[in-house]
């Protein structure tokens, strides 16, 4: 996998945030946390998406989904960490290789193979998975709540993938550590701690607020609360104007052929004072005189985060820093990554 050099310098984390990250990620402070410190919600969101637990889907399946999605997104960082984690959990190189090459060759149940296949389609979104594909997952034995979590696992894995790729976050020392003889000895102990058990369902957030209907589709899965909190924090953050952020959501919605995401963003942009005709010009052309200097860079950038090659995304992210501050670039990547999660997840609302 191509991977550049990270240009984000580590910075001190807001008080309490380092502890929050450590609590979420097995006592470790990963390398990305201090590099993203300028925008606390991005650090929190990455922690939530990396550490999310599921109520209806087997915990091991989420690691496999992370692996195939990271591989598809060519995320060197997430791929390396997930592969090392799978080895700690007791899976061998040969087994991991087989799943990477073809999920049908994997030593796993047909239902799990179908789940991985579906996760890949959610991640590709080329084209967007159809309700019929969700139906096939149900025929393979998955309950609706588990299907929603499989979609969430695939869509949300794209968040850390995009953050790590855009900034070329360097590989974690954990990758090398997992290969050392001492680590092999303590693997079984670690595996017990990391494997975990399914989480208890949580109270479903009310179906209101931005992206409320997509979040509602997750029901009482713990993912629903994680996504609700992330969207609210992202939109409330003062680093970039709300209008710029919603414009990025609209662009990603259009790129992923998600009329729901685009329509919701359009309604909000209308409320923020953008005329429908002017907005259509902006979305049709990814630019226009209606945009300020910052938005003129952010709107086309949002499109580049939907389907990308790692090196091109890293180059384009670096170019953003010519017109934006470091905090603005981090928030822009975070918003684009979040928009990709929501628009991909909205397949749960598509009807037959």
């Amino acid at each position: 996998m191509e991977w550049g050099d990270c240009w984000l310098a580590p910075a001190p984390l807001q008080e309490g945030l380092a502890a929050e990250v450590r609590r979420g990620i097995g006592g470790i402070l990963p390398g990305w946390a201090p590099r993203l410190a300028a925008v606390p919600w991005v650090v929190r969101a990455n922690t939530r998406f990396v550490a999310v637990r599921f109520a209806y889907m087997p915990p091991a399946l989420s690691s496999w989904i992370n692996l195939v999605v990271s591989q598809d997104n060519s995320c060197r960082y997430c791929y390396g960490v997930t592969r090392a984690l799978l080895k700690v959990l007791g899976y061998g190189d040969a087994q991991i290789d087989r799943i990477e090459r073809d999920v049908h060759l994997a030593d796993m149940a047909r239902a799990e193979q179908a789940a991985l296949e579906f996760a890949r389609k959610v991640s590709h979104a080329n084209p967007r998975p159809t309700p019929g594909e969700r139906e096939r997952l149900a025929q393979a034995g998955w309950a609706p709540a588990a299907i929603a979590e499989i979609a969430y696992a695939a869509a949300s894995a794209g968040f850390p993938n995009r953050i790590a790729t855009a900034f070329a976050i360097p590989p974690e020392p954990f990758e090398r550590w997992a290969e050392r003889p001492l680590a092999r000895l303590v693997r079984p102990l670690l595996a017990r701690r990391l494997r975990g058990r399914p989480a208890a369902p949580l109270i479903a957030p009310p179906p209101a607020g931005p992206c409320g209907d997509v979040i509602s589709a997750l029901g009482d899965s713990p993912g629903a609360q994680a996504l609700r909190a992330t969207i609210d924090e992202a939109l409330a953050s003062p680093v970039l104007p709300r209008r710029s952020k919603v414009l990025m959501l609209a662009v990603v919605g259009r790129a992923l052929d998600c009329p729901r995401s685009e329509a919701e963003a359009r309604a909000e942009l209308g409320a923020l004072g953008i005329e429908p005709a002017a907005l259509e010009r902006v979305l049709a052309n990814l630019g226009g005189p209606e945009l300020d200097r910052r938005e003129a860079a952010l709107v086309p950038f949002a499109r580049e985060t939907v389907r990308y090659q790692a090196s091109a995304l890293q180059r384009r992210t670096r170019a953003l820093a010519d017109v934006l501050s470091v905090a603005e670039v981090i928030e822009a990547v975070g918003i684009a990554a979040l928009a990709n999660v929501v628009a991909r997840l909205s397949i749960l609302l598509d009807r037959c």
Partner: protein
Amino acid sequence: MLSALLAATVVVLAAVAWRLGRRTRELRGRLARAAGELEALQHSFARFAPSEVVERIIAQGISTRSETKEVTVLFADLVGFTQVAEALPPDRLVALLNGYFAAMAEVAAAHRGHLAKFIGDGFLVLFGALEPNPWQTNDAVHAALAMRTALAAYNVRLRADGLPALTAGIGIHRGPVVAGVIGNAALMEYGVIGRTVNVAARVEGLTRVHATDVLVTEAVVAHLDGRFRLRRMPPAEVKGIPEPVVTFAVDGFEA
């Protein structure tokens, strides 16, 4: 006697087990190599066909399913290349052409175009064929302008090497095409067919009539960013299309 027989049996069984183990390792190695090659092939092929088509081919064998898609087609051809070809020795000619194709392919990829085919000294680029792309038409016309710039830079190098400069004509049209894996067991490719492709090729031919390098059709203009600077050309008759074709020369883009 019995113990000797037992020992011999153990030795034979151990030898068989060792050979079987070696054979299994060999087969596993071959399987891993084959899987690696298949993976590399899959990655390579994904550059030439939509990922869903590649997956279908891998899962079900050769796919014969085709679909109608709205795409933007860019057709480019070199003007007066026959004279250039006749004046150059074969190795210099091939090097010149390969350098030109390399420069154009880079531009096409940078604008999310899929270089579908080389046709002599011409080539066909598709926008919106491999992945859904709501900005396919703007991408195609931006690509054409970038090709103009890239060709100018390439011509500087050609002149420095004592080679003749090249002139290209580019025609762009948007419309429905039938896309799918076309060919037979011996030779096949992911391609598109239909009137849209023919119109793009005919419009490229009109660049000679209108003495310009980039021409687009009304169907393209209908989807185009208003910041492109266009000049309307007089309607022109082209082979195979009953009504005269209205085209627009693309002069530039007001950023």
